[in-house]
């Protein structure tokens, strides 16, 4: 069956008139006194420092902010002339996390879900499903299971499910933040194709300006104090406000954070692998011969599914090698050389592992308690624990949060806290999985400067990452892995 191209939607305008929102139980308004008009069919990139209320505005536009018990609003927020709270179905929202947006088990059913909720007749639904899957470049069989899709495919599936409802306003909340570089481009291009066909209005929130730059025709910068900081064509806004935006944490082309200076003095060998094979279940990579030296940073890069995280966990003494061995001669200090055989409390003073999802690592009710966990396990005195924790709190900008519950922190704060927790026991080797994930340009620069300092003091860092800037700034060696099991190891040129 040849399916027709995507049917155009009626683009909708957005009007904010003195609009604001305060979450229940908070003292400050998330958004305050916002005046704004977005014309039908405009493509807007919404920027602002973290905490400026970008996501709040997007959720309000999507009508999922909740009712009176969730918070309090001021002013008016209109979509196509009527209240945003009645916008469901006219507005499509794609969120950040690919895993929590898949609703059903089969591709076709998942795309159909939104149409069903809108009461679209059956024949019409399947026509729209075909159209939408094609428009996002995901021409899979309708019965294909959704569980095996990559992150980029899941985000395109979510996009297909949304555009099948023919929304006049498309909202994207950091849709590419969790994806590898390949996935980022896939999703961006799918959005471009969809907009060209549907003509819908677009509002996208994203830290990485360069990704969406070619696609948008207007940039709006929200002010953390409320209202709009800058508004205009991308060229205009970035020329006038580029430096200020970069200082407030936005990734602005031409204003990228400067990598820190490093005094590279490679030290002794801490850990090496002999013909290491890794995997959990299926074997992901074989024949890995790596060397990790004090004062050096090894970056492990490559697409999702290549085994980067598994390699990190295996080097960190958390997963067994499938074949070959990990030998941490330079770290053992009297113990055997296989880190997997070390006791948990012996491990934390030798290798510090930071997981991809910080929430997996939190075991305490407060930030202060979280930092003390490792110290207590290794029997440090209270005074010594405080001596180690205080500078970390300050350095990683967590000082004002000591009493907060780790789960309530922002994504960037969680990441910095999980790095801080492993540093308390001063392990000479750090294994960090996506350490820069979720950081804005400012906290990124701080984190990278901090890691550079640790490296210069003789620590060693193994970083699993998608972040090319991080590799440029820190890595001495880059190990590029691929799904087919091929490897490319290179000294990072300076």
């Amino acid at each position, binding site marked *: 069956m040849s399916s027709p191209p995507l049917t155009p939607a009626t683009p909708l305008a957005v009007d904010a008139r003195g609009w604001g929102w305060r979450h229940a139980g908070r003292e400050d308004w998330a958004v305050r006194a916002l005046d704004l008009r977005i014309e039908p069919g405009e493509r807007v990139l919404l920027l602002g420092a973290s905490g400026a209320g970008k996501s709040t505005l997007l959720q309000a536009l999507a009508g999922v902010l909740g009712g009176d018990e969730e918070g309090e609003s001021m002013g008016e927020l209109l979509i196509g002339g009527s209240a945003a709270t009645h916008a469901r179905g006219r507005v499509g929202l794609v969120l950040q996390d690919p895993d929590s947006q898949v609703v059903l088990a*089969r591709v076709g059913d998942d795309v159909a879900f*939104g149409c069903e909720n809108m009461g679209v007749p059956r024949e019409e639904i399947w026509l729209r499903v075909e159209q939408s899957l094609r428009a996002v470049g995901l021409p899979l069989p309708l019965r294909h*299971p959704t569980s095996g899709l990559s992150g980029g495919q899941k985000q395109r599936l979510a996009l297909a499910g949304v555009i099948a409802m023919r929304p006049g306003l498309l909202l994207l909340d950091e849709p590419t933040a969790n994806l590898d570089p390949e996935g980022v481009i896939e999703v961006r291009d799918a959005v471009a194709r969809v907009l060209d066909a549907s003509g819908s209005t677009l509002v996208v929130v994203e830290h990485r300006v360069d990704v969406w730059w070619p696609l948008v025709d207007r940039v709006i910068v929200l002010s953390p104090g409320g209202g709009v900081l800058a508004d205009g064509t991308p060229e205009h806004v970035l020329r006038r406000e580029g430096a200020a935006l970069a200082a407030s944490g936005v990734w602005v082309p031409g204003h990228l954070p400067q990598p820190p200076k490093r005094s590279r003095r490679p030290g002794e060998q801490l850990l090496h692998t002999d013909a290491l094979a890794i995997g959990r279940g299926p074997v992901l990579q074989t024949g890995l011969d790596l060397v990790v030296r004090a004062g050096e940073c090894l970056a492990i890069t490559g697409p999702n599914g290549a085994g980067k995280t598994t390699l990190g966990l295996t080097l*960190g003494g958390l997963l067994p090698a499938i074949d070959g061995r990990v030998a941490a001669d330079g770290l053992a200090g009297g113990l055997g050389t296989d880190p997997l055989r070390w*006791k948990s409390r012996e491990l934390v003073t030798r290798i510090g592992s930071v*997981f991809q999802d910080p*929430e997996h690592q939190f075991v305490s009710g407060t930030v202060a308690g979280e930092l003390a966990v490792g110290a207590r396990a290794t029997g440090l005195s209270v005074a010594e624990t405080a001596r180690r924790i205080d500078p970390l709190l300050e350095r990683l900008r967590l000082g004002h949060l000591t009493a907060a519950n780790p789960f309530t922190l922002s994504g960037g704060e969680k990441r910095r806290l999980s790095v801080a927790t492993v540093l308390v026991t001063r392990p000479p080797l750090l294994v960090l999985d996506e350490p820069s994930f979720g950081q804005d340009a400012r906290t990124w620069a701080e984190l990278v400067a901090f890691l550079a300092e640790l490296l210069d003091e003789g620590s060693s860092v193994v970083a699993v990452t998608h972040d090319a800037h991080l590799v440029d700034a820190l890595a001495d060696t880059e190990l590029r892995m691929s799904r087919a099991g091929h490897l490319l190891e290179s000294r990072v040129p300076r």
Partner: protein
Amino acid sequence: MTTADILTPPAGTRAIHRINPVAKLAATAVIGIALVLSIDWVSASVALTCEAVLFFFAGLGPRQFVRRTLPVAVAALFAAATILLYGRASGTSHWRFLLVNVTDGSIELSVATLLRVLAIGLPAVVLFVTVDPTDLADGLAQVVRLPSRFVLGALGGLRLVGLFAEDWKSLELARRARGIADRGRLRRFAGQAFALLVLSIRRGSKLATAMEARGFGSSIPRSWARESRFGWREGMLVALAFLIALAAVGTSVLTGHWNFLAGA
């Protein structure tokens, strides 16, 4: 069997695959209810014999049949062995040892139990390996008319179950990485279980937002992309189940073996 297998079982072409899951649920319930009313070997054997004929049409190969139904067979044997050794004593005693007393009565009860577990369990497994949860949800909402919010919410949640196992493994590794995996196994387990609960709730609420953003729970009457029909095939399956139940109970009553609710 992985979660993915359960969520999307292979689609087949045999008649059994096309039958509405609601009918399978009803058929299993009819036979099951009839057989729990009495424990005697006659009703169970009649039911099992009738079912055995039907299994040939179930669309399962012999190897697959054995693999899928093995747990039921094992459970039946364990139940039978327990009753054989400890069941209510009556008639001649064949072997006594401490609490163990194998008698004529316990032998008969044991055989009846074995047959009964098989007669109820086997058709349930055979009918349900071909059930796709999505189709079942469609059936429950469209045929039985359960509220769609409830049915689809449960279906969406089912997909998250597969992520639990991964989360649990990560939580375990993370505790070792934090230096607290050497002692207090029990307390650590409790803490980890709580962490898993927190993670699941967070995932669940994110999924709920995504569903809501796609119009789920709005006041608009919902349409259904997949029609769930209850036609003559379904009627026949349920009728067959009634016939089997009737034959089993009838034979048992006529031969005088029927003992209503375990012969209380």
